[in-house]
């Protein structure tokens, strides 16, 4: 395990060192951005709408019973910004994009495409890893902003139309505006940026470590997703402690 952590940190360092080559590889970065957005936007929309809705439903019914119905907007707003938006989106992206990265690089390794790159003096970290890590580090915070807004809207819908709650849109968003500030959104964006780096580097690392044929690729994909999610949840705790006063 410690060897893997060391390798992941080393790979992250190598990807960072390759950043000056980003302009040269811009087409690959755009391709990855398109892939991430195209594959995730609809899922992100559905997921966030229902997360916001469930939040409003769970908390709303209890808050309304205690005469605190007008604070639902703020509660959903802060929860989406600080926790559910970044964490749920990162888990979605780890499953959808992290797995694809591990599978693609893993199959390139299994079918000697990485060796072919090396024989042409093309560094696989510059050619494959850096564009993917950079693309996900740009795309995930953007997806999280989208997710937060859709989540707010999902919460507002449930708050307005559920018979147990019945809080108007105006009241919901007034409270949301009062409670949520830029620091809360920044909190979510910082977290999602850190989670994006975890997903990108862990998935590429698993792909590069693939041994064997289809079974090895399958193993790498599973490890990439599981390790990413575990690391995201562990990192989430420490980032929350670090950013608690932001």
């Amino acid at each position: 395990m410690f060897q893997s952590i060391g390798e992941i940190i080393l790979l992250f360092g190598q990807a960072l060192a390759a950043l000056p080559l980003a302009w040269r590889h811009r087409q690959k970065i755009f391709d990855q951005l398109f892939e991430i957005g195209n594959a995730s936007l609809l899922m992100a929309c559905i997921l966030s709408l229902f997360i916001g809705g469930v939040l409003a439903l769970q908390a709303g019914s209890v808050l309304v019973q205690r005469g605190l119905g007008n604070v639902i907007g703020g509660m959903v707003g802060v929860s989406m910004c600080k926790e559910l938006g970044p964490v749920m989106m990162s888990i979605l992206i780890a499953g959808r994009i992290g797995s694809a990265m591990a599978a693609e690089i893993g199959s390139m390794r299994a079918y000697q495409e990485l060796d072919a790159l090396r024989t042409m003096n093309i560094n696989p970290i510059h050619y494959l890893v850096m564009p993917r890590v950079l693309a996900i580090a740009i795309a995930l915070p953007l997806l999280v902003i989208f997710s937060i807004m859709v989540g707010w809207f999902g919460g507002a819908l449930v708050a307005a139309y559920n018979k147990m709650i019945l809080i108007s849109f105006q009241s919901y968003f007034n409270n949301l505006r009062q409670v949520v500030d830029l620091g809360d959104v920044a909190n979510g964006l910082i977290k999602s940026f850190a989670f994006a780096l975890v997903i990108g580097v862990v998935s590429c690392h698993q792909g590069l470590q693939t041994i064997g044929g289809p079974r090895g690729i399958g193993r790498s994909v599973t490890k990439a997703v599981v390790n990413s999610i575990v690391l995201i949840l562990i990192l989430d705790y420490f980032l929350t402690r670090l950013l608690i006063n932001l």
Partner: protein
Amino acid sequence: MTPTSNHSQSVSVEVRGLRKSFNGVAVLKGLDFKVEPGEIFVIMGPSGSGKSVLLKHIIGLETPDAGEILIEGEPIQSSSVMDKYRMAMVFQSGALLNSLSVGENVGLYLAEHRLKPEAEIRRIVSEKLELVGLKGLEDRSPSELSGGMKKRVAIARALVVDPQLILYDEPTSELDPLMGVAIGEEILNLKKRTQATSIVVSHDRDLAFGVADRIAIINEGKILFIGTPDEVKNHSDPLIKKFIHAELKKT
């Protein structure tokens, strides 16, 4: 490693005391041989005898546990050798990048190292594909090609480097006999055209005897014999005889 438009100047390759183990299992047990400039040197041996591992050492994809590989007398481990001499490898599977078209695969080296303008790369790609009989297939995807076509694209990709040393890993495996002959002819033509030194790993006897200047027989990580095709055919060692003359007999 910069390609030139002129024909290559071939290089010598010397392997000295090469040893390699994986997880405690010795794969190469001290190999010594020298390949002369411009020679076609075929390495034959049964599956699992360490041929492909040897080839990966020669191109620098593996690091030896002991011993050294010298290109024109300079150890390959020194970084300057990889930059100084132009080397290319044709992989057993072709190892074409599936995410790229045939043309992009062939021109990848030039494009990634920004060695030529785009129009010039297109011209060179078209020229190299024509050399291997695949003119006009630039826009195809590797998944649309047959096994033989993939190998020829891989050869075209290797030619873009204008190699001084070209390594072939099982170039005729998974091919029908006609395509095998075509690939063998391609290897001979390339030698005539480029004078590059060629090292071919294969257990295809027809290919080996058809193209080789010299053949090395390798078994269980050791070299059993090195000689001309005739010397190998007439060798008295029972293991070599068994490998060279193996035939299926109906009982």
